[in-house]
């Protein structure tokens, strides 16, 4: 049997050490800059949760350190158990407080962003279709007619990753690119996400956008880029041996530059 002041101090110290490590880590700036309109609200949810959980982490570990240090004093009888009233408070209050913080984060901060992000895109939104393939991204703009041409699996070939139906008039002005998405700043983008083999995931940290691409489904999200620049697009869902290099680039340009770029694109240029 061990009964020791020294052990108690070491253990209390370890609990405080957890907090030291957590704060040391928290000092470094981790989150990438925010480059989309809804990104600020996503970040607010993250920051709020980080602050709240940080508070709980400190409170919990201080309580542990204190209880352990007290137990190591080694002299005298253990103190009496708390009164029934105190017991009820200890049981109920932290739970209610925690639930209020957690559900508050969802109901107040999160769900409005969520509803907007998955809700209908504004009418002036730029339409872009992104199709995941093992292991590249096929990006398609509908062209001047605003309509995407039909595609079919039977027509897919090495030089035609979507299997575009050329007899469809809507297909003639479609613009198809690989692994690069060009977007104008400050204009909403309506993304149509598809996959033709396995599940992929469209992940651009700066945009605070992540969405799986599921074969057999067309999944819609919309967002508004607010910061010009080049951002890395990563596949975030295990999709096969080339998963780690399924990388693309999102290039957000000023509206004028974007329109110039778009005008230079012939149908189906690469």
């Amino acid at each position, binding site marked *: 049997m061990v009964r*020791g002041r020294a052990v108690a101090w070491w253990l209390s110290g370890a609990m405080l050490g957890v907090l030291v490590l957590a704060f040391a*880590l928290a000092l470094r700036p981790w*989150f990438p800059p925010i480059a989309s309109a809804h990104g600020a609200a996503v970040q607010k949810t993250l920051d709020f949760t980080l602050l709240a959980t940080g508070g709980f*982490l400190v409170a919990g570990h201080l309580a542990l350190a204190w209880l*352990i240090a007290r137990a190591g004093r080694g002299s005298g009888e253990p*103190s009496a158990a708390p009164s029934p009233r105190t017991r009820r408070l200890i049981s109920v209050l932290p739970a209610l407080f925690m639930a209020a913080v957690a559900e508050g984060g969802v109901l107040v901060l999160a769900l409005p962003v969520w509803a907007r992000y998955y809700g209908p895109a504004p009418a002036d939104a730029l339409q872009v279709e992104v199709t995941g393939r093992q292991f590249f991204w096929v990006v398609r703009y509908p062209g001047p007619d605003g309509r995407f041409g039909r595609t079919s699996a039977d027509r897919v070939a090495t030089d035609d990753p979507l299997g575009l139906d050329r007899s469809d008039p809507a297909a003639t002005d479609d613009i198809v690119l690989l692994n690069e998405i060009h977007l104008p700043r400050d204009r909403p983008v309506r993304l149509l996400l598809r996959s033709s*083999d396995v599940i992929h995931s469209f992940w651009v940290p700066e945009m605070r956008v992540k969405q799986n691409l599921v*074969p057999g489904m067309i999944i819609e999200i919309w967002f508004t880029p607010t910061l010009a620049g080049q951002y890395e697009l990563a596949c975030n869902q295990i999709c096969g041996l080339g998963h780690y290099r399924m990388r693309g680039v999102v290039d957000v340009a000023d509206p004028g530059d974007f329109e110039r770029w778009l005008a230079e694109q012939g149908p189906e240029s690469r």
Partner: protein
Amino acid sequence: MSHGEPGGFWTRYVFSRDHKVIGLQYYFTAMAMAVFGGLLALLIRMQVAWPARDWPWLARLLPDAMAGGVMKPEFYLALVTMHGTIMVFFVISMALLGGFGNYVIPLQIGARDMAFPFLNMLSYWLALPAALIMLGSFLVTGGAAASGWTAYPPLSAVKQAVPGSGLGQTLWIVSMALFIVSFTMGGLNFVTTILVQRTRGLSMFRLPLTIWTLLISSVLGLLAFPPLTAAAILLLSDREWGSSFFLPAGLVFGDKPLAHQGGSPLLWQHLFWFLGHPEVYILILPALGIAFDVIAPFVRRPVFGYRSTVVSLWVIAALSMVVWGHHMYVSGMNPLLGEIFAVGTLAITVPFTVVGVNLVASLWGGRFRFDTPLLFVLGLLSFVGTGGLGGLFLGNAVSDMYLHATYFVVGHFHFMIGWVTLFGVFAGTYYWFPKMFGRSLNETLGKVHFWLSFPCVYVVFLTMHFLGFTGMMRHIYDPEQYAFLKPLAGLNQLISVAAFVLFAAQLVFIANFAWSLWRGRRVVDPDPWKANTLEWTAPSPPPHGNWPGPLPAVQAGPYEYGPGAEERRPQSEPPPVAPASEPVA
């Protein structure tokens, strides 16, 4: 009630129906699987921290997977898939439920054995082949399954989708199906035994919390595992017989269209997580039960809020069955469902906080005996807090959208179903080892084990949470492909070094275990910790049938430790005149 003592070696140690032998069989199998699963983790960490590095000595060991000294990406995916599968099902489930469940249940409820000893034996002898098939899948063409431990189709359903989707994936499915059958047999046995075989006087509210948590976990397992069995059979059918449960029309692989149509990849995710989320609680609850059972005798106080803990555990179990969708916020599932699952998931904070606070408050005012079992429980309490708080990020649909499938998730679940459960296993092992073998584990090595493990767990897995904040993807084989991940290289190396030390610390435990089996200090006292629950009234190790004489009858609660009480107050003796659970002052 008592059945005859088995005679020969085979019926006594191999095809035994004795719950203690079966418990140890499970425990040792889990330990062997843990070493293997840990080695896989080391390979993963080598690759992530030093991507594309040439390891000539590894190429000699693994000529195929490390051809030319550099790890192949498909091997890396097999590593992460098999590490997850092995650790979740064949280590934690096996050690906590198969191992401690079998060993401890009859001893703590005053029964001579499980309700169905033959079924119990059969359950182990299905689990072992399941484990061997899972291990063997590394040796087949294409290697082991490589679609993640969640095996999402089409990656897991289409053979040409990834090299591991050949025979390796089929063996994965067969092994999982066998494991689930075994687990179901065990669960039926646990529930029946706990409900029916309790000794005289042992009412439900006199059960030790380990028994409560094992009961709840078994009920959850019985409800949640069958849908995965069904899903596994459907997946096998899609793979082998051309059905389309999970495969929609329009699939193209290598520019060739497939003939499937009409299926839904999301169906698998619903079925998988319908098991997968309760499984988290199936694993974690018994670890919390063990924590309560260890705290009480070492703090010499009744546990705080026994009844509110039991009620909260059942509420957690009920809620855990209806929140699986929080694994699917970005899956393409109807966004309205995401809102409902977010509100439901965060409701779990209420019962979970009650249990957590009750654990911590059980330390209140005690004078501890700082033996190794208590050290691991104190570590576990810290992990439950830190890991549990991560759940507030992932339960919330919007913060999960950012963090989903990043290293934040990896850090989070390694705290919860990795190290909370492992520290529960360790606390239970240091605590019950004298009962199991009549010897005690070495205290000094136990302390070395703790003091190496605790800080390393934090350095490895807390740091991973922060890597997730940058957006680092969880399955990435080579982070150097991305400019935004390059600055993390130093931290990834730090994590890997800490992970290697963490693995070495577990070898200290295994060495201690092996050494103490033969050379550990003999424990003559059947109740070395002066604990009150029934197992401590049986001899160490308990004979076949557990008690040489009549079964003990119960006259008191499991935690009747009073202020200043050094003496035992076994459950089998009447409680002191003033009920010890009430404050005396």
